[in-house]
């Protein structure tokens, strides 16, 4: 089997698992989670194999598959990986498995639940490897359906509202992407994303055309990120979603938006990207500060993490639209690190909630007195989140700020405000740690069992990655950098 077929297997293996899981007979609901664990585990193993076989020195696409899908419309089944997508695919495969482990205790309609979780993986994996625009859109939208059901069927009290809001909000964004995609096709005659990027760098598209297509894509991607003021679906969806869905929502789905900017908006519409960059940077800075400020005010731990995501994703946007190599490297590092660290935070919040049935910060104070391991891990994840040097969160935000300072399109004062956002993140995170981990033990937490081996299994790979990436940036950036350099070169060529 060629390595390019392996990529298709990685994408569609969860689909097979989803079908098998859905067909699990009523008598043995426990089998579904094993099906999910085995397929996700196998998927992760194959992804690791891809990572090992990946040539880090090359900037182009590797493991490419390209066959005609719909001849009349010029749609291809076209997959491939570069350094940016392999980082995201790795994250997606890892969090996919962790989401399954985190759902081990789900017994309510378990076959359906795990089928949805696996179907979600198909969409997530697919988005990061699709090189045909229609295929990209298919995977992009495919994600909506299982997430809608996961929130709506297994979510919290306001799950119906949150799930429908999530679905309609993101669908409304992405239909504009569809229009932009068709416009680009009519202009260039191709849906091939590599070819579109080449045409974009060649400067064949007029600025006026680029501008409005850019706007259409912006609506599609920015809702997903989410960028202020399109973020309002996020707190609802995050808070109501079951733990595993929150992990994937924050860990992967938000990254799909920023990935879209990197894979689509920048290379295909470089001139428009230059025009819009300062304005998007303004929104990014607002997201950073606003997300942090609102996080301060939260009394619900899960909401706090949700709003902190808005803030962190602001750094990603700032890094991307600095249009510099440092900024883009930083953006991808934040994407990766935020996926790992926020995944960890949501897992821990979920674990605490399973025991205490509350997420109110005031109710669970003094966690470490009853659960020293869990409290310690929460503190660890929080430090990683606020960007403590030596942990994974630091490198990305640092490089994003460097990039935005170097950038010729972003004024320095914006970088300064964004840097204040780092301080704010430290403040609200430490304040949370102070109250939850160290505060006087509340009645609720007293006598609760500490982290179980299964829970530690789910967290262990994330802890390891946080340390590895934090201590050795190049372990991640050596994959990403060649692709980023090529992208920046193409952007420069268009200027």
């Amino acid at each position, binding site marked *: 089997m060629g390595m390019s077929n392996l990529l298709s297997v990685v994408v569609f293996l969860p689909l097979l698992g989803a079908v098998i899981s859905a067909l699990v007979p009523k008598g043995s609901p426990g089998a579904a989670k094993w099906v999910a664990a085995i397929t996700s585990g196998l998927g992760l193993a194959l992804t690791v194999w891809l990572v090992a076989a990946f040539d880090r020195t090359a900037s182009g696409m590797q493991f490419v598959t390209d066959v005609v899908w719909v001849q009349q419309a010029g749609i291809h089944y076209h997959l491939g990986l570069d350094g940016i997508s392999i980082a995201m695919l790795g994250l997606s495969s890892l969090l996919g498995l962790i989401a399954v482990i985190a759902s081990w205790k789900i017994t309510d309609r378990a076959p359906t639940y795990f089928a949805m979780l696996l179907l979600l993986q198909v969409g997530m994996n697919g988005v990061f490897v699709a090189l045909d625009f229609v295929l990209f859109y298919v995977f992009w939208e495919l994600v909506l*359906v299982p997430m809608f059901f996961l929130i*709506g069927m297994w979510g919290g009290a306001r799950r119906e509202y949150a*799930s429908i809001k999530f679905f309609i909000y993101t669908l409304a964004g992405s239909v504009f992407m*569809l229009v932009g995609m068709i416009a680009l*096709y009519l202009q260039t005659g191709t849906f091939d994303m590599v070819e579109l990027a080449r045409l974009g760098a060649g400067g064949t598209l007029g600025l006026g055309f680029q501008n409005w297509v850019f706007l259409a894509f912006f609506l599609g991607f920015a809702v997903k990120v989410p960028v202020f003021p399109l973020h309002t679906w996020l707190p609802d969806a995050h808070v109501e979603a079951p733990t595993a869905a929150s992990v994937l929502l924050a860990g992967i789905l938000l990254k799909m938006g920023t990935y879209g900017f990197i894979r689509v908006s920048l290379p295909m519409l470089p001139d428009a990207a230059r025009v819009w960059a300062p304005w998007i940077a303004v929104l990014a800075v607002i997201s950073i500060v606003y997300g942090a400020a609102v996080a301060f005010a939260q009394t619900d731990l899960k909401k706090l993490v949700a709003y902190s995501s808005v803030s962190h994703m602001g750094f990603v946007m700032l890094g991307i639209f600095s249009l510099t190599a440092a900024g883009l490297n930083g953006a991808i590092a934040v994407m990766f690190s935020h996926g790992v660290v926020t995944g960890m935070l949501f897992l821990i919040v979920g674990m605490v909630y399973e025991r205490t049935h509350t997420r109110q910060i005031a109710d669970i104070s003094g966690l470490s007195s009853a659960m020293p391991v869990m409290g310690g891990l929460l503190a660890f994840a929080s430090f990683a989140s606020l960007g403590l040097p030596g942990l994974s969160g630091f490198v990305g935000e640092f490089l994003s700020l460097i990039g935005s300072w170097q950038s010729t399109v972003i004024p320095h004062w914006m970088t300064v405000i964004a840097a204040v956002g780092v301080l704010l993140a430290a403040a609200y995170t430490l304040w949370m740690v102070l109250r939850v981990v160290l505060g006087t033990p509340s009645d609720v937490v007293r006598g609760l069992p500490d982290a179980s081996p299964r829970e530690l299994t789910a967290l262990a790979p994330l802890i390891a990655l946080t340390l590895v990436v934090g201590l050795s940036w190049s372990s991640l950036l050596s994959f990403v950098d060649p692709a980023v350099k090529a992208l920046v070169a193409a952007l420069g060529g268009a200027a």
Partner: protein
Amino acid sequence: MGTWTLIAPEGLLLAGALVALFADVLLPARERAGAWVGAGFAAIAAAVSVAAGGGTLFGGQFAIDGATQVARAATLVLTAVFLAWLAGAGLKRGRVREFAALVLFAALGSLLMAAARDWIVLLLALETATMPAYVLMGFDRGDDRSLEGALKYFLLSMVASLLFLYGASFVIGMSGSTLLAASRLQPGAIGVVAAAFVFAGLLAKLSAAPFQWWSPDAYAGAPSPAVAFVSSVPKIAGLFAFARVAAVLAPQTAAAGPLLVAAAVASMLVGNLAAYPQTDVRRLMAYSGVAHAGYLLVGLAAGTVAGAQAAVFYAIAYAVPSMGVMLVAAQYGETLDDLRGLATRRPWVAWATGLMLVSLVGVPPLAGFVGKLYLFTAAMRSGLVWLSVLAVVMSAVSAGFYLRVIRAMFFAAGGNAGPAARGSRVASAVVASCAIAVIVIGVASSPLMGALAFGR
């Protein structure tokens, strides 16, 4: 090769209808035998229609090209599938054989409509397809609402036919021939009036705005199986005939484009917004039908072959899930309350329904998405960018009311137990096959689009 094989499917349907009608004489013990017989005849007719190939009959009044074949085959397959469902699930008040015969007569009219290349033949076909539908909509003789709905449908449909005939009479007079291809509109107001009347008649048959107001009342009163058929299957041939007529008339009068665009905009807005407050699935699907008529008109407004192809494709991509959802409603209850908790009672039926609803929203990779991709590509190629933007926004809006049905089925625990689910295996298989078709048409759209070749 005898060209008479071209019209053999019509003959088979006629024979099937007559056999079904007299099924209780031939097979007195089996109430539902008529439906089985009809399904068999329709299935054979579908095979014959594909095998017969293309050609022309009756001096060009009746012609079949690739696109016509697709429209006819799709109509026949869906008719066969519908009759199989009918045979499996039966009707609450019996009289299955009459129902089956009427369905076959309506399908017969639809087949003729797709192949008609002559104004008079087209009118006759239109009437043949519509008249059985009046009876189907008023099938519950004892139910006042059903009769009221049927009467509304009858009156508006008659008016629509007359509008069409009135317009057609002008066209025939101006061109001196009844053949569609020979139609010549004179410049000036008279051409506009003729085209407007013809379009108005066809818009009403398609339940497009501003002639949509009959459909919610008619559907809500009618028995659900009748709605399942009438709201979906005849629309394929209806849209196809519309595409033919528009292709002939639109290039000859500058008013045609704006008329189609206006009808498309009105249909999309009215359909999608009015569907929101509905709690009866029949009314909801009635407005959904209006909205989808709007998307179809976007394709016709493009005024290109690609637009017409996309519209025919989308008519099929709409008809399959629309029929499937209504069949589920026919079996498990027409209000959202009836469907509450269906996912617990009949999980597979609920998932199949959910899939079809999601396709109607236009989520990839399902049929509805691919159809919309073709439609909007064609429209944007013709410069109708703003219309496409409106259409995609309306697609996102439509998610709201389709999701309400999904919410009732999946998110509400238990709910009202609903009418005892009649677990007919055949009926479930039909619903499942509709859902599978939605996936297959979406993922493998290439053969279908390739077959949609428009000749003269």
